[in-house]
Structures are given as C-alpha cells and as structure tokens.
C-alpha cells in the first residue's frame, strides 16, 4: 500500500487511512532501530535534501538520520549557507536542487505555505518540516505514534494542548490529526494566544489550564517563543508560567496515567517545570526516538513504498 500523494504538506488534508498507514509503517521501522545494524538499503541511490530556512536541531537531525538509515544520500542546506542571501527566490533555489536530482526536498520555512508553493512547482516530493504557524505534520505523526504506543488507542482520549496555540504549527497539526482519529482536544492558554476560531474546528477552547488538564489522558505543552513578551501577548514570563506553566500540582488533576509531551525545545521552568519534563509521566524523549521511525516511514512511503530492487 502506498500514499496517494506526492508530498506531505499537512495533516489537515490527509485521509484517516493515510495517517494510519504512516503510523503502522513507522511501527515496523521502530523495530529496525532496535537492531545492531540500524541501516537498511531501502532508499539507496535516492537523494534527500534538507532545506532549512529556520534553525532546527531536532527535526533536521531526525530527518537526516532517517534518510541515512534508509541509505539515501543526504544534503543539508541551512539559511546562512544558501543562496537566499544573494537574492535568489525560494522557488529558484528549490528548482536548482531538483535539477541536481533531488528525489525528496524536506523544507522548513518561516512562511506558512512555503512547502505548498514548492510542491506545486516541483516534480519531486516535498515534505513539510514546519511552515510558519501552519503545519508540522511529521511532528504530529510522531506525537500520534507516541500516544498510540503508550495508550494503545487514540479514540476517546482527552488531549490538552497548552500554551501559544496561535503561533504553533505543532498545535494545528495535532488538532487535525487527533480529531481525525477520534480524540478530544482541549486548547488552553492566554486569550491572546488561543484563537477562539479553533472551536469551529472541533476543539474545546479554554483559558484555564486547570480546566484543560482536568481528567486529561495526555497533556502537551507548547514551546513559548520568549520574544512574544515584547509584542503584548502576555505581561511577563513570571505571570505566564504562574498561570499556564505545567507543574506537578496542576498535573494532579489529570488522569493518574497521564502522558506529558512537548515538541521541544523546552524552556524549562516556563511552560513546564523541570521535574515534570524529566518525570515518570514524561514521554518527551520517546517522542524524539519515535521521530526517527516516523520520518523513515514518511520518506519510504513518499518514495513509492518500493525498495531499491523494485525500482525498475
């Protein structure tokens, strides 16, 4: 079975079957990660380009390692090294990379819709590794996979997503994915950062962290961009973390077997207390581990789901 699409741009436009296919394929790649030799020849001869216009450690390393474990050739390009500074347009940069034979371009960009722009103009596959506040589909797939691994299901679970939802592509992708797979999503944070409009898409919107966490199976804290303080979204970090920071005390309202998640990088002591981030409920590092398997699955499925020998 293959994905019906050339590109992975967002979860909102995906069918439930496609999401499930990626998740089950990821499970089989998790097994590969447990082997002594972690490399398979699946994408030998293919070229994957990581085109990152925003700083990233986790996602970029995850995609790079995923591609290498599938035996693909990998090129990493980040803003400072690219010709963007010379005034070349995004589209030209991408077309040049395609002309060099890229099979997959993984793009991260601060503009919502930048991957869509490339996908329309290029024949090669485009994977969205995070665009503006739009989507971060592989992160959401990682989160879904991690919850499934621990809970065995998504349907019927209550997931609280807490923090700067307005600027969060992770929150959006998770909202689309979780609701498609039958989970209940609560969004909480300061009124300046939780758009009420999201209620129209099936989320429960609240400004109270306690309300959001109450009886939750999963609590996902979002990274707070510290520079937002200067833009009048909230008065001080002190007040933010006092009202919307995840603490041991607050977490007691959740189910006893609650999972605590964070897409990283973590501002310890701001959106999440260190003892929670490192505590028994935390699956933050499992998310990172699963990231590899999920990205291997995505690269594999977008490359036609065929191994090298089946390539004609």
């Amino acid at each position, binding site marked *: 079975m293959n994905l019906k699409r050339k590109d992975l741009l967002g979860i909102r436009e995906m069918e439930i079957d496609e999401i499930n296919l990626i998740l089950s394929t990821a499970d089989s790649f998790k097994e590969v990660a447990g082997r002594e030799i972690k490399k398979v020849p699946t994408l030998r001869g293919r070229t994957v380009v990581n085109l990152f216009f925003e700083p990233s450690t986790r996602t970029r390393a995850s995609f790079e390692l995923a591609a290498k474990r599938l035996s693909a050739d990998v090129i990493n390009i980040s803003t400072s090294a690219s010709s963007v500074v010379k005034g070349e*347009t995004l589209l030209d940069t991408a077309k040049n990379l395609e002309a060099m034979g890229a099979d997959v371009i993984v793009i991260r960009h601060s503009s*919502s819709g930048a991957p869509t*722009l490339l996908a329309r103009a290029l024949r090669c596959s485009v994977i969205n590794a995070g665009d*503006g506040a*739009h989507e971060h589909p592989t992160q959401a797939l990682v989160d879904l996979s991690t919850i499934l691994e621990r809970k065995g299901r998504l349907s019927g679970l209550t997931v609280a997503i807490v923090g700067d939802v307005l600027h969060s592509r992770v929150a*959006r992708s998770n909202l689309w994915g979780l609701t498609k797979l039958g989970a209940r999503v609560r969004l909480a944070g300061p009124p300046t950062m939780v758009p009420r409009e999201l209620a129209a898409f099936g989320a429960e919107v609240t400004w109270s962290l306690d309300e959001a966490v109450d009886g939750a199976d999963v609590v996902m804290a979002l990274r707070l961009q510290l520079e937002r303080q200067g833009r009048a979204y909230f008065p001080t970090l002190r007040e933010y973390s006092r009202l919307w920071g995840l603490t041991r005390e607050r977490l007691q309202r959740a189910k006893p077997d609650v999972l605590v998640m964070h897409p990283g990088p973590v501002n310890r002591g701001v959106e999440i207390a260190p003892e929670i981030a490192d505590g028994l409920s935390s699956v933050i590092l499992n998310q990172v581990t699963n990231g590899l398997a999920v990205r291997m699955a995505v690269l594999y499925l977008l490359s036609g789901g065929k191994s090298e020998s089946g390539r004609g």
Partner: protein
Amino acid sequence: MKATNNTERAGRSSDILVIRGGRVIDPANGLDGVRDLVIADGRIASCTPSATVPRDARTIDATGLVVCPGFVDLHTHVREPGYEYKETVASATRAAAAGGFTTICAMPNTNPINDTRAVTELVIEVAAREGVVNVRPIGAITKGSRGEELAEMGDLAEAGCVAVSDDGRPVTNSLVMRRALEYAQAFDLPVIDHCEDLALSAEGVMHEGKISTMLGLHGIPAAAEEVMVARDLVLCELTGGRLHLAHMSSAGSIRMIREAKARGVRVTAEACPHHFSLTDEAVIGFATNAKMNPPLRTRADVEAVIEGLADGTIDAIATDHAPHAAEEKSWPIDQAPCGIVGLETALPLALALVTAGRLSLPQLIRLLTIQPAALIKIDRGSLSVGAVADVTIIDPAKQWVVEPAEFRSKSRNTPFAGWKMTGRVVSTLVAGKVVYADQ
C-alpha cells in the same frame, strides 16, 4: 464590432458616428430606453428614439446591446513612473479600454511618488502621448506619502490632480489627517484615505478569522480598517473637509459610513469588485492572487458591501487595479505583494450583482460613471448633449471565460482566472473614437 463608413468623402465638415438601436442607459439624465446616439466631432450631438442618419455618417449597430457613459475608475495603480515592469500608462489604459473604462485616476504611489507638480505633469504628458483613455492623476497627501508634512496640494491641483491620497498607506497621524482635510478644501480636492491601523494589521497577510487561523497566517482584523474609518469620520465632521474612503471592505465600515451620511457628514466611499465577489476562503491553498489590502473578508462583509452599493452608502465601484509581476506573486504568501489587476474583470463581476437582483442595471452604471465623475468634479460620466463622447457599449448576455494571458494589462495577477463570466465590453469610445473593440 466595426464602424462602417457609408461613404468616404474628403474634406467632410464634421465627423459623425451614430450608435443605433441600443438600450441607452444614462443615469445622469435619468435615461433608460432604446435610442440612437449621435456623436459629432467627438461630442454627443443627440440622443433620440430615431435619428436621421446623415449619408456620410459611420454607424454602429447596437441592437440588443447596452450603451452607456464610459466608466470612471477612481482607483488605478498605473505604476508608471518607476514600476514599468508591472504596468505602464500604455498597458494600463489599454486594459482600461478593454474593461469599458474611459477615465482612470492614477494613484500616486509610483517611484518617484506623485507628490509634486513635476510628477503630475509627467503622468499627464505620458498619458497624452501613449494612453488610449483619459488619465487623471491623484497627488499625494503628504510629501513622499510619509504621513508627516503636507504635499503642495495647490500646485498638484493646478497641474491637474483631481484628488489627493497616500494610498497604500494610511495617514497615521491624526493631526496630519485633520490638516489635510482642512487644507484640501481650498482646492476642492477630495482626500482619499486608505484606512488601516498599521499596529492592528502588523504582519497580517489575510483577513483575521476562521480561515487565517486554520492556515496559520497572521490576520488583519476588520477592526484595523474600522478604527481608521471611525477616526476619519470624526475628523471629517470636525473639519467639514471632503473625505473619500478607498476600498471599503468590512461590514462595520459600511455601517459607520451609512450612519455618518445620515447625519450629513460629507463623506463618500468606494468598493472594489473583489470585495463584493470573493471571501477569505479564496486564500485557501495559499493563493497569492487572493492576497490584497484590505483583505478579502467574510460572507457577512461581502453582503454588507453589496447592501452599501444598493442603498447608496457606497458612491462608486473602483477597481484598485494593482498589477504585480508573476515573480512577485510566486513568493511565499507573507512576502508576496498585495493586490490584483481589476480593470478587465470589473464589469462582469458587477453585472453579477444585477443578475442576482441586488442592483438594477442603471444603478450599477451610476456607480461606474456619473457618481465617480461627480466625486472628482470632471465633466464626464454622462451622455448629455454637448458632453465629450466617452461611451461604453456592453453585451450584458455575452458569456466568456477569464483567460489572464489575454489581458491587455502587463500583469496577470487575478484570482478570477478560469471564471465563467456573463457580460462583456463590446466597444469603448473616448471622445467619439473607438479605442477598444471586442474580437
């Protein structure tokens, strides 16, 4: 449509053209009926149910067609001087002619900005040499459109500017706006404001609402426009100046203008075809050709704009024709420039309101002709005997598909590509001369 010469005679004393048997709609004279329109030496000679056609006259058979005054666009970005790669006077006026417009008002946000007599004279000179329709420049309100010091409005008016505007930017400073509304009265110039609170719209790419939230794009709330409309109305009342509000897009703005007009405030307003034809859903898929400022808003706003047109709250339909090169519109949406070309699609979009029963055809033509003409006090927009014969002939039933490659404009940035339209300009005449003929 071709004008046919009955006879060619050298040394003919007058050049006569008769447009026969069309439904002549001339709102300025309350006329709507089948007439023969006789044009002699570039002016309207008569408009009667049955004209005797001189033997040497040329004729146009307008049976089944609508004959009306040429359209007047209060809001055209001609781009020359400075941005000739987007549009020139030559291409903009040809696009205008194809869209039925015989007069376009050139916005001053060129390079250099039209804030001095020299630039105004240049625009008029180039228009006389290369344009096929009338071009009336609009001068800047402030020097460099920086919103700080008033431009030399007296000079601008003398040189031929019909209004002042810092369009593309609001006049942020309320004192400067107050002074502009006061000072412009000496020259009877309307002050056209682009209403936008820049702090509220900062970084905004599209209308703030459900769709912007879904797409993760920074939103521009309707309040960004409404806050400035409210301020401008207050200042208009304070000064008694002539305030004209450009491209009104939100229900709240329309409501405030309606209320102000009822109290006798001296305000006029315009609306653009895209704001009564499209909603913010057009942006889905990150369509840069649906990015404009003010942005496309919700169904409720579209309805309010249409009601404003119908009940007289809005005085004119203006295109905000804003050409941009294809390269610029292929940037990521938050970096792509705002605006769309509008001259060649305005008429059918407006006619859709007539088909939908929202406006009568004479009402629509009034919004495209005499009302904008009266607003800038030019002697156009009517078919009165003796008037310069700027005439547009329309086939209101003609069906066609928008094919941007066929535009006369240099730019192709339209969200209406592939739309099936009803109603098309058959012929456009400026001072009695055919400047556009379909096919």
